[in-house]
């Protein structure tokens, strides 16, 4: 009988293993923040998790502003206005030194989860794709590819449109590590732009307003 119980207990786990982060249905969480935060932000000594939603930060006017900045129907938020985004505030010896934030973006064969850590000025310190599906998906998770984004900020997207793939500047110089997964390459760039815009609206714009 105990075998049956083991099976029954395991059954939901097996079923949900196809959707391991199903609990975080729309908002994007780190799978294991205690392990991932020090990896993405090497000098961190602690972190705090916050939940922010467009609804509570500004409601429909903010949503409209974000959508205008995203600039295209190809950059949907995939999240209702009241769904909380998970924001990790990073500390070093009690002093805030940056942020980590992730977004979902639609890829060719599944959801792509794109995380970045930023310093207090909004520059990218590290870049991490938590989940991506496809034959050559591993190439997008390669450290060499991730390093190409270090030091970038939202300004780097001023001269580049990740929807059309046209433009110039640092983003345009990044080459697709897996040409057979072109859809996913642009999904990563679109997701990154979305991530930077959301962080600007949630964190940096309000901070600029205070100054």
């Amino acid at each position, binding site marked *: 009988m105990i075998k049956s*119980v083991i099976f*029954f207990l395991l059954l939901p*786990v097996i079923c949900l*293993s*196809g959707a391991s982060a199903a609990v975080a249905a729309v908002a994007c969480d780190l799978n294991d923040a205690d392990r991932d935060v020090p*990896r993405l932000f090497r000098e961190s000594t602690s972190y705090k998790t916050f939940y922010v939603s467009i609804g509570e930060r500004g409601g429909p006017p903010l949503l409209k502003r974000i959508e205008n900045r995203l600039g295209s129907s190809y950059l949907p938020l995939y999240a209702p206005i009241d769904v909380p985004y998970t924001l990790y505030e990073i500390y070093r010896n009690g002093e805030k030194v940056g942020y980590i934030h992730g977004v979902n973006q639609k890829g060719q064969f*599944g*959801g792509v989860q794109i995380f970045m850590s930023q310093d207090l000025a909004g520059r990218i310190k590290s870049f991490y794709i938590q989940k991506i599906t496809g034959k050559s998906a591993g190439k997008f998770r390669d450290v060499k590819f991730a390093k190409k984004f270090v030091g970038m900020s939202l300004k780097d997207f001023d001269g580049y449109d990740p929807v059309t793939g046209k433009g110039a500047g640092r983003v345009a110089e990044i080459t697709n590590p897996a040409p057979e997964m072109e859809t996913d390459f642009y999904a990563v760039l679109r997701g990154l732009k979305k991530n930077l815009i959301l962080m600007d609206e949630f964190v940096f714009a309000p901070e600029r307003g205070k100054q």
Partner: protein
Amino acid sequence: MITPFQIACRNLLRKKVRTFLTLIGIMLSTWVMVSLFGFNKGYEKALNRDIENMGYQLMVMAKGCPYEAATMMLQGGKGLRYMEQSMVNDIVKEPEVEKVTPILMQAYFDPNKGESGGIAGYFGVDPASYPAMKPFFRFRSGGWFHDEAAQEVVMGYEAAELEQREVGDMTMVPEKNVQLKVVGILERTGTQDDGTIFVPLKSLQRIAGTAKITTVGIKVKKDADMSKLETKLYQLKDVQVVSFSQVKQTILKLIATARVMVLSIAIVAILIAMVGVVNTVLMSVLERVQEIGILKTMGAMPGDIFRLVWTETLILCSVGGIAGIGFALLFAQVTDILVRRILPYAPGGGLVAIDLPLALLTLVTIVGVGLLSGLYPAWKAGRVRPLESIRREG
């Protein structure tokens, strides 16, 4: 004219901090008690719902499958035990059986999920028999497969959200790199089906390179003798039978230990709260001996004094009890989350079910136990001798 109730309220308000702390004690014990009873009720209800939503009451699988299920998760399906699909024909012949459906469970390792990879699970189901087992399924968009060997998937609500899939999108089976088209997305059911990716049985068999299955789901006829059927199924070669009613009973037995522990804590909490009540009311009586003596000289009978002191206990327990029930209702979702973290298996849906009869039962219990605790202080107050008390105080 001032009523005994008003006098009792004023007496309690004389020592506000003491009264407040006693109320906190009663409130906390009520909170624990009503949450525990709510859990007892809610857990069984949720478990029943989960089992009913399986669509079938019995499962037949190859021997050793529970352990292989764990292997499947850890190693991505390597070493799974299978059985012949012809087994379905043997089972369906039994007179107790209403419907059967063959299932193939597969799991593949996806190296690009999380830091060190993850498992993607697939349920191969027979389009002809499986939907009939799940008549409560509703599609958010799309529908079931177009044919029995289609390269298609139907996704549970959560699975589709996680994968950002819509009807018409493609998915890819990791390891095998096989592309499948999304043809249906289910509405949320609150069960494990929400995280499931369904594939036509024949398609998954082709992807897995096997003609076998891992499980047969059996729906038993109404009023059929299930234990008789189980005995017959055990005669089949190299299979084991999982009965969900037995599973339910065993899970409830496992949970019973936790229930007894929490019940013990609740009883201790109530006892501590009641000792607090006795202490508060007794202290209040001892501080008012002279007053009680004067009341008696004015004609108050022992019964009047008894009722006055007992009313104080009643007020304390009622207010504390109502506040405790209020907090339990307010924080039911938090309790739910905490309980889920502790339990080895938590079914979907709400685990803590607090309704009006349960709230009233808890309130009556708290007030009843409280009134019993108040008997001694009230009796002691009633026995105060007027002259002696006045002389002593003077």
